[in-house]
């Protein structure tokens, strides 16, 4: 069977997320509890988590998580990484044996800063440089796959049910101020670990439920700007759309969300002048970035948590708040099992993005 990226694999899913906007730490066991309630929404062919704030001792360094299929791949990749980064730490990511997780790749992580000399010679800014390095490894070194490359954050994923993946990585040993989780229900898959979600580039991680019908329109739009959609997944293309809008076009996150889930013309035509002009301009310029078909997406970053839903509300996504915490999940029950008495519960509606910003000191957060 063809590996993901050689073939497009649609999938349904479960997603969940928690944020503490004041930056208080939440243990990994919470998010596992939430996502595991939605067991039936996955089929054991992919699960994963993203956690923000887990590496405070390395917060100024990139945390690079890599899957290796062979020792040779590791040798080649490390050669590349040691050349392009000043690596401080190189270690196996601690895991434990779990019955339902089959033997997978060798999983390593590296902490380090970008090699400034190489970066300057390449005439790239730091983020562009790091993003290029990740792309070069993933496209150029057979058997090596970087699945996490942000600062003070990390993705953890595998082929299996999400609760088993959480146990495998011993996520109860990690504390984070933002957690996102994903359980996958692909319609067919060769069971490749790299194909599990969240999908990550730099600081951005995406979990997504649904199958977008605008995929190729979005892919061909974003590939104009140097991106290469090698995974052929919705999650990948949505991540790149956000990355492009936020990093290259410097749009605020809520404006980027408006691009992906723009209101309908009927609604825009009824708006007052400024808003009408804003949305008309947005839809006119970013027509290729409009996302269509059923989806619910949670975008995690060190800036906060963004949840968007498709324009017709074809996919479920519930939000809730209590105190400094906000919760999202495909099903309300998955929120209530970890927060039985939320102050507010609502269904995220199409074209009305919800953004929960992280309100900790900016110096603590890498400014994007």
């Amino acid at each position, binding site marked *: 069977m063809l590996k993901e990226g050689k073939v*497009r694999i*649609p*999938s*349904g899913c479960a997603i969940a997320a928690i944020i503490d906007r004041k930056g208080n730490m939440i243990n990994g066991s919470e998010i596992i509890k939430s996502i595991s309630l939605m067991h039936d929404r996955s089929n054991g062919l992919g699960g994963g988590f993203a956690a923000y704030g887990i590496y405070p001792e390395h917060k100024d360094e990139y945390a690079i998580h890599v899957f290796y299929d062979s020792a040779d791949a590791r040798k080649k990749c490390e050669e590349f990484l040691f050349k392009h980064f000043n690596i401080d730490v190189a270690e196996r990511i601690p895991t434990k044996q779990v019955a339902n997780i089959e033997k997978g790749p060798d999983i390593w992580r590296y902490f380090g800063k970008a090699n400034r000399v190489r970066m300057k010679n390449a005439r790239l800014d730091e983020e562009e440089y790091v993003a290029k390095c990740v792309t070069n490894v993933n496209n150029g070194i057979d058997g090596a796959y970087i699945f996490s490359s942000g600062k003070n954050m990390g993705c953890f994923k595998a082929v299996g049910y999400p609760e088993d993946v959480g146990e495998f990585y011993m996520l109860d040993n990690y504390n984070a101020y933002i957690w996102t989780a994903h359980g996958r229900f692909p*319609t067919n898959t060769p069971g490749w670990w790299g194909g599990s979600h969240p999908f990550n580039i730099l600081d951005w991680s995406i979990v997504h439920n*649904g*199958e*977008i*019908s*605008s*995929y*190729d*329109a*979005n892919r*061909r*739009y974003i*590939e*104009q*700007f*140097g991106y290469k959609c090698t995974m052929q997944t919705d999650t990948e293309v949505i991540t790149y759309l956000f990355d492009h809008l936020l990093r*290259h*076009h410097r*749009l*605020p996150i*809520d*404006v980027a969300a*408006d691009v992906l889930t723009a209101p*309908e*013309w*009927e609604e825009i035509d009824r708006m007052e002048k*400024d*808003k009408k*002009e*804003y949305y008309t*301009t*947005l*839809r*006119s*310029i*970013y*027509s*290729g970035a*409009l*996302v*269509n*078909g*059923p989806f619910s997406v949670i975008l995690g970053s060190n800036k906060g948590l963004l949840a968007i839903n498709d*324009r*017709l509300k*074809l996919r479920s996504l519930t939000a809730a708040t209590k105190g400094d915490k906000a919760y999202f999940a495909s099903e309300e029950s998955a929120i209530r099992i970890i927060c039985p008495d939320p102050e507010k519960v609502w269904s995220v509606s199409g074209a009305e993005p919800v953004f929960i910003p992280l309100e900790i000191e900016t110096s603590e957060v890498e400014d994007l």
Partner: protein
Amino acid sequence: MIGYIPRKFTVIRDNDLCTNCGGCVSQCANECHSINAEKNRVLTNSNNCVACHRCVDMCPVSALRIEKYICDYRNNANWTPEYQQEIVRQANTGSTLLSAMGNPKPYPIYWDKILLNASQVTNPSIDPLREPMEIRTILGRKPDKIEIEKKGKSLTKMPPQIILETPIMFSAMSFGSISLNAQKALAMAAKELGTIFNTGEGGLHPDLESFGKYAAVQVASGRFGVHKGYLNNCRFIEIKIGQGAKPGIGGHLPGEKVNVEVSNARMIPEGSDAISPAPHHDIYSIEDLRQLIWSLKQATDATKPVAVKIAAVHNIAAIASGCARAGADIVVIDGFRGGTGAAPTRIRDNVGIPIELALAAADQRLRDEGIRSTISLVASGSFRCSSDIVKAIALGADACYVASAPLIAMGCHMCHTCNTGKCNWGIATQKPELTKRLNPNMAQKRIENLVNAWNHEIKEIMGGMGINAIDSLRGNRLMLRGIGLTNKELEILGIIHAGE
């Protein structure tokens, strides 16, 4: 007799039904029917019949029928009757062969070799009766990115944009090549449908000046009818470099068709031939095109987008990209099956390439260069139905131009003799006794019906794909699959084969 060409059709009159009312006699401008006063009977001479069906459709007792006239030659796959007859015609006259309408040769029609997708289970189809289906289309140059003050407040000053309520526009047909009534019908329909009609290179008749908001005005190599008022009374200006039916050559409206009205609109003397040269005599390279674009922008205070229409030829991708870089806000590509009022037969049948391949190649090239999203791409050159349009948009077009389809809606029967000026349906003629046959209001209604029907079908197909905004169909080639195509064809179209 050397020089004789057997007729093409036979008009068959059922004498049991015919009441000898003489209706057909007055209907046929080709003079196929006549009254024999002695016998008090209507007689038929089939030699002039072009199969326009006017007499058939108008006969109150359905007594008439048209049949192909078969006069066999000895079989020869190489020297077909068609080639022999064309040689005879040229031996008779010493002239270039002329034809009308689009390339009729059996070249591959890729629309018929592309299949569309629909949603099943993993993502739902959308019911267009319940959910909004957006086909609004915006043409014009776009900046790379938006500048905002905050969410809800844009600081970007947008270049002039054309907002259409359908991706279907009416392509250029000049007053002169078609009658004023036909152009009026298109203009009125464009207004009602929220789209535009195109004046062609014929100027704007005073009766249509109030339709400026729904007009694209053409500036072609003859510059007929072009003045400041004309340029400023439109939604966009279209520089016509080439036409799919006759790439590389100009146009010729014979003096007989230049009556006082046509002469006024074109700003040429009555009865004089209107000859559009092959090239624009001020455009000998891409930088000259840039100058013309900017001259037009200056003449209109930059309030009108400028489109450049080019014929689909071999190097189309690079040419389209050049036009975009020369400042064209909209690039129109006209495929070799595009229609025309008159074209040299050899050119019409042998020059240019299919719109499907040209569109796919140009869209991909503009994307490879990272400029596709900043300009609009319009496809033209024979769209026969709504699914052709859906396929064109999925290949990468923003909008499509149609001309033959609305002509057929108005009564055209594709008899391929527009160049004779004897159109019995009152469309491609300037003879007052013929043009008065076309009631502009009724024709308008029929064109509106057609476009509304196609709009419905486009929405239905989009809904089936799980798409509710045409933005998400545009360039979405994963919605297409080829059937019976070679690897090379699939590669150029940028699609994969059915079953993959």
